[in-house]
């Protein structure tokens, strides 16, 4: 979805595009607890839309899709903007259709950025707490690592909290370093 949004933002132009553009960053700027409260009411047990996602996987999914939206879009957007249309035009003139051109010409150059954005979004999602703490409720099935650690600290189980934190920390660091390396590889390829 991040790629599709970036595509529309870069290649398409229509009235009010700046508004859509500003919308992308909203999940980043909004404090996570604000997101948590709103989602709890919108998709909670008393949902005005009659969509009850309280204590469900879907509830977590919606929250995480919301907070990670800017990462995926902003990682792809500058790369897409820097591609000139030449290779695409060549592919088209050789008879490739729109979809084929996208898959075999555009997508290969986007891959590193897509992966990089995915890495950042993943790191963010794995550690997310505020936005999902409310809609996840209190049952074990929807307790994420962050919520679990928080519960441990509430019981002053510092040793346990430290152990789980370390595991999560190592995982996040691996993701951070991997996406960093990936981004550098890509920069090298762009400017040899």
């Amino acid at each position: 979805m991040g790629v599709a949004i970036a595509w529309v933002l870069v290649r398409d132009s229509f009235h009010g595009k700046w508004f859509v553009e500003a919308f992308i960053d909203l999940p980043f700027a909004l404090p996570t607890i604000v997101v948590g409260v709103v989602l709890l009411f919108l998709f909670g047990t008393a949902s005005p839309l009659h969509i009850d996602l309280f204590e469900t996987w879907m509830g977590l999914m919606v929250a995480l899709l919301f907070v990670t939206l800017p990462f995926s879009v902003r990682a792809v957007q500058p790369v897409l903007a820097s591609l000139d249309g030449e290779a695409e035009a060549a592919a088209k003139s050789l008879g490739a259709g729109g979809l084929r051109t996208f898959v075999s010409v555009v997508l290969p150059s986007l891959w590193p950025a897509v992966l990089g954005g995915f890495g950042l979004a993943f790191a963010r999602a794995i550690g997310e707490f505020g936005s999902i703490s409310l809609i996840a409720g209190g049952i074990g099935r929807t307790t994420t690592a962050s919520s679990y650690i928080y519960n441990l600290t509430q019981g002053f189980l510092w040793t346990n909290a430290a152990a789980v934190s370390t595991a999560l920390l190592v995982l996040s660091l691996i993701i951070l370093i991997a996406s960093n390396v990936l981004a550098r590889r890509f920069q090298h390829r762009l400017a040899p």
Partner: protein
Amino acid sequence: VKHTSRKWSLRVVVIGYLALLVGLPVGYLFIKAFSHGLGAFWSEVTKPNAVAALKLSAEVALIAVPVNTVIGIGAALLLAKKKFFGGRALTLAFDIPVAVSPIIIGVALILAYSRIGWFGAWLSKNGITILFSPFGIVMATMAVSLPYVLRSVLPVLIEVGKDQEQAARTLGAGPLRTFWQITLPAIRWGVLYGVTLTIARTLGEFGAVLVVSGDITGKTQTLPIYIFAVWDQSYDTIGAFAGALVLASISIVALIILSSLRARERKLHVDLA
């Protein structure tokens, strides 16, 4: 015709997705916060505990933002001037606080600085408490908002280059004067961008602050903690939504500032993670 229809359908899908995922929740926030009228909203926002939380948030920001700005500019100058061993590791270290869970930041601060922690005995002997105190909140907030100034200033600094600074130096200006008259004006939009990001992050931080603050009503509640607490403890919907709207409005103002800065300076981009 086929081309246009594909373009239109993609446009509709994207805008529809954004409207459902982002527009709906944000719109709902505004409607719900004012659902009992403007008066009810105002009386919620002016409750003593809400005002105390707002004040604490502002105080924390007043300390954390300037400190992080100075550190961020300093680190950017260091990293832009010359390559040195460990430069990349330093950049990465700045990123750690935002790449890991805020809960981990909170736990780490407690393990290091509270009474049970490494420096705890020494700190408490000198009358400094970190846990359940505004001081701890400032530390947690500073940690999670650490990299934004660096990340905004560094690309601008690299783009500007060293020519003007070197010219100033050969004309006899000292390093301090060169910084104030040459470097700082050149990077001012980058600094402002980073500061805005830092403020937004500072006022909104929840997880890390929740762990260290101890959530003491009227004393160690920042605005995000207050929102969580009024809902968690008393199921006060209007109170939670009123607080959420105040925070959301601040971040929307921050977004407007950010996008107008981006229009001015092309090197700036939304740098996340």
